[in-house]
């Protein structure tokens, strides 16, 4: 038989003013299982709490009902109090006598009746609770950052500087991401490489950071503090312990391939470094285009390599390590506008380029050494049309959202063009100009003063006549149709999530929104966490951002990781789902419905009818389960139950209430 102690609170006159607490206490004494009832002026005060503790010990109480304010207010307080007594902290029920009774009713008689019911319900429920124990989860003091762009690098540096080991997984051959492709950064116009490459080498040389370039996450299991991650390091065909990065191999390689880093505007060799300042500063062999690896003929790079670092027999390497926290800094790519905008030629015209291609054109280390020359004939364009919101804010063809950075970088592109081609004309077609940010609007106004012609409207068609690209559009401010004969058109295309993020997110059970961006746990209050505990977001993986915002979020994610890694152990929430394996049929409905991927179906051996049988049953991962209880309702057999809110205890509450 349970020994229930009921502790009712006056809360000064807050409760006692409308509820006859003594009458409630009198009723409580008659309830089955109740051995002790006490009223107190302020139960939550130190003397009040002391009184509860003493009563528990003196009366041999094994479960407790308190009747004060809302459990949302003080439930943790009561749990903490019980932790100091022989009573299990989860053998507790709080009757909300203040927020949901005394404060909302005026008639004392009615409020007292209701308070009695609330106490009855609480007593009924607490009698059905069972002691729960939170388990301690060890925390592996090591973080994994997925993605080596500016957000990933910043996160890694911040975590590493705090003294924890970090691994960066980058699927390209070098760190740097998109930022290192850019020429200059708005609004200060510092050279992107000048501020990005030092970060890259800092990351590369940091004693706490391991960079795994040309690598991808293969699989993952586990939970917060204990993610077991297998990383596939793709075959580089070069022994990095021997390679000095001299580059002799690159100059001799006979195989020429389209250069992705230069946005397809130049060629690279099959053995290549992504760009000169790459980190790690060593090449890889692109197996698909290497003559030696494809046809078994060539081997020039091995001949010229002074250190014998070339290894054509290299294979993918799999390594598995345990990490305490994971940060997604997987970044973005530009939307593939070609199939979406046939009216812009759909890729038919080489001189209709994207913003990123323009960045490479204007970059001193780019294919044209910084001279703005149009791809078709290497002539300097004398008039350029810039079209904003290509794929952004266009739910019919592209995405409904605003890509956030394009207003500023299109202003930058106009500025750079007018700077390099002083006699050129630049037209910018826009829907709105959005420049919230320090120094942003000033930058935009300067571009306008430089002579960029801003036209409010969209371009409906681009076609070629002679060697001109005719852009037809509307100036909605004057309601005039406008036609611009341009030499080159720059499309400022929308940001979309990086390739492969769908599979990666599914591996980690991180949610994605309708557009594919990773979803934060709360849009306002938990913007860098995900719904999976221990996994965080940095940069454009979460949605379009510019560089300052990405870096900010990277720092925020890092501080969350540092906070987690600082702990030696985590205490798990014991109010989670539990499986009754005798009833479980293993059909997996619960596993399908679980938003955290906390339930898996495993084959287990049982002894049934004096026979050994192996059958599937559900298994709850205590590190992932958050205790929502959705699985309990899906389970028809009732094999799933939620600790702290068990089916029986809720039914008892309902019954207690119906007896009123």
């Amino acid at each position, binding site marked *: 038989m349970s020994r229930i102690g009921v502790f009712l609170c006056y809360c000064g006159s807050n409760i006692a003013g409308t509820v006859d607490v003594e009458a409630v206490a009198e009723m409580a004494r008659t309830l089955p299982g109740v051995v002790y009832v006490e009223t107190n002026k302020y139960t939550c005060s130190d003397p009040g709490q002391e009184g509860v503790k003493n009563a528990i010990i003196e009366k041999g109480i094994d479960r407790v009902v308190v009747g004060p304010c809302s459990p949302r207010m003080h439930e943790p307080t009561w749990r903490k109090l019980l932790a100091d007594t022989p009573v299990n902290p989860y053998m507790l029920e709080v009757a909300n006598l203040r927020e949901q009774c005394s404060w909302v009713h005026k008639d004392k008689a009615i409020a007292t009746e209701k308070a009695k019911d609330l106490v009855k319900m609480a007593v009924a429920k607490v009698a059905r609770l069972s002691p729960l124990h939170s388990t301690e989860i060890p925390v592996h003091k090591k973080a994994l950052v997925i993605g080596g762009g500016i957000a990933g690098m910043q996160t890694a540096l911040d975590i590493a500087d705090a003294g924890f080991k970090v691994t960066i997984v980058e699927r390209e051959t070098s760190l740097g991401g998109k930022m290192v492709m850019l020429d200059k950064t708005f609004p200060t116009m510092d050279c992107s490489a000048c501020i990005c490459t030092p970060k890259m080498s800092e990351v590369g040389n940091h004693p706490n950071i391991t960079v795994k370039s040309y690598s991808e996450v293969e699989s993952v299991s586990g939970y917060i503090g204990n993610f077991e991650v297998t990383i596939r390091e793709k075959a580089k065909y070069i022994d990095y312990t021997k390679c000095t990065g001299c580059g002799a191999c690159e100059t001799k390689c006979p195989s020429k391939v389209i250069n992705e880093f230069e946005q397809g505007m130049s060629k690279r060799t099959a053995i290549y470094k992504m760009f000169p300042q790459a980190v790690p500063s060593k090449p890889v062999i692109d197996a698909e285009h290497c003559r030696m690896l494809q046809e078994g003929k060539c081997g020039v790079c091995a001949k010229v390599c002074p250190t014998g670092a070339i290894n054509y027999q290299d294979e993918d390497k799999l390594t598995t390590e345990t990490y305490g926290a994971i940060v997604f800094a997987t970044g973005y790519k530009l939307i593939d506008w070609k199939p979406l905008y046939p009216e812009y030629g759909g890729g038919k015209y080489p001189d209709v380029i994207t913003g990123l291609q323009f960045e490479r054109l204007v970059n001193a280390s780019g294919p044209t050494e910084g001279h703005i020359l149009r791809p078709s004939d290497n002539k300097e364009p004398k008039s350029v049309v810039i079209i904003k919101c290509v794929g952004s804010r266009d739910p019919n063809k592209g995405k409904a959202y605003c890509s956030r950075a394009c207003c500023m970088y299109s202003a930058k592109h106009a500025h750079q063009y007018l700077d390099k081609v002083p006699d050129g004309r630049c037209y910018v077609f826009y829907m709105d100009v959005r420049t919230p940010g320090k120094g942003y609007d000033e930058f935009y106004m300067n571009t306008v003063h430089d002579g960029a012609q801003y036209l409010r409207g969209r371009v409906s068609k681009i076609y070629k006549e002679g060697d001109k690209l005719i852009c037809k559009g509307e100036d909605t401010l004057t309601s005039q149709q406008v036609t611009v004969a341009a030499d080159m058109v720059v499309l400022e295309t929308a940001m979309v999530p990086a390739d492969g993020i769908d599979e990666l997110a599914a591996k980690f059970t991180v949610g994605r929104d309708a557009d594919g961006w990773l979803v934060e746990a709360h849009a306002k209050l938990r913007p860098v966490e995900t719904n999976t505990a221990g996994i965080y977001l940095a940069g454009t993986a979460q949605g379009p951002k510019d560089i300052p915002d990405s870096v900010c979020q990277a720092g925020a994610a890092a501080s969350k990781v540092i906070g987690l890694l600082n702990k030696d152990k985590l205490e798990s929430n014991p109010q989670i789902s539990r499986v009754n394996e005798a009833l*479980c049929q293993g059909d997996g409905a619960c596993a399908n419905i679980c938003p955290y991927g906390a339930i898996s179906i495993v084959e287990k051996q049982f002894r049934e009818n004096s026979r050994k049988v192996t059958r599937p049953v559900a298994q709850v991962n205590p590190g992932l389960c958050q205790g929502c209880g959705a699985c309990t309702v*899906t389970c028809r057999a009732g094999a799933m139950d939620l600790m702290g809110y068990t089916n*029986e205890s809720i039914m008892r509450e309902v019954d207690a209430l119906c007896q009123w």
Partner: protein
Amino acid sequence: MSAQEIIRARAKELLESGEIATFIGWEAGRFTNQTTPLVITDAADAGKLVFNEYCANTLAKYVTDVLARGKVGLVVRGCDSRAIVRLINDKVIKREDVYLVGVGCPGMKDRKTDEPLKKCTECRHNNPLVFDEMAGENAEKAVPEDRFAEVKEVEAMTAAERTRYFESIYAKCIRCYACRDVCPCCTCRECFVDQRRENWVGKQNNVAENRFYGLTRVMHIGDRCIECGECERVCPMDLPLMKLNRKVIQDMNDLFGEFESGLVISAEPSVLTTYELTDREEFM
């Protein structure tokens, strides 16, 4: 060769070859035109198998009883095959656990009245949907015009009439659980009504507890019900149980899109264990 002859021949061959361990079909019962399900393990018994227009019982659920002996062969009509699909989709059995001899079904008759069975007049898929081989040809059968006609009849009553109607049903129910035992959706290792759980469904036989059982049964099977009508046929009190099942199915059809359960083997979640962001919103 008649379907019955093919079934006998195939059962014999399959058992003799050792491909299956047991074969489930029907045998002639004690009374005129009566048949009962038959499980044979010996090829010599194949001659006992019958197939005629009085094979009322659905066979699929017997698979779960005899599966421990090895692969099961059985005769499947439309309803049996959907029941097998149901069991596979609920991961109770695997496709390779069963060898299905399909047979076209023209609809079965009540042995006493010689009238078509209610469940067969309402049936929309009389020919097997999943099978390994067919014994004979598919059969023609009229498909009912309105799948939910009987639901609409009830809906036409006033609320008070409906209360009384269903309370009289629950008053008649003797809680024999025949409807559950025969249902291919009811495959829990231990049904909630059999479990000893305090404050859950009571064991008394009264209207309230019977209502608890009845409503819970519908909520448990509604989104997976294959509309075989077996629950209704086996009910010793002749309770119109399909009026409840079909109500839920009708609402799901209206709200979440057309569906019929148990038509194809798939891992798709059932209607109530999934959702769409665009589901109708009526609780704002």
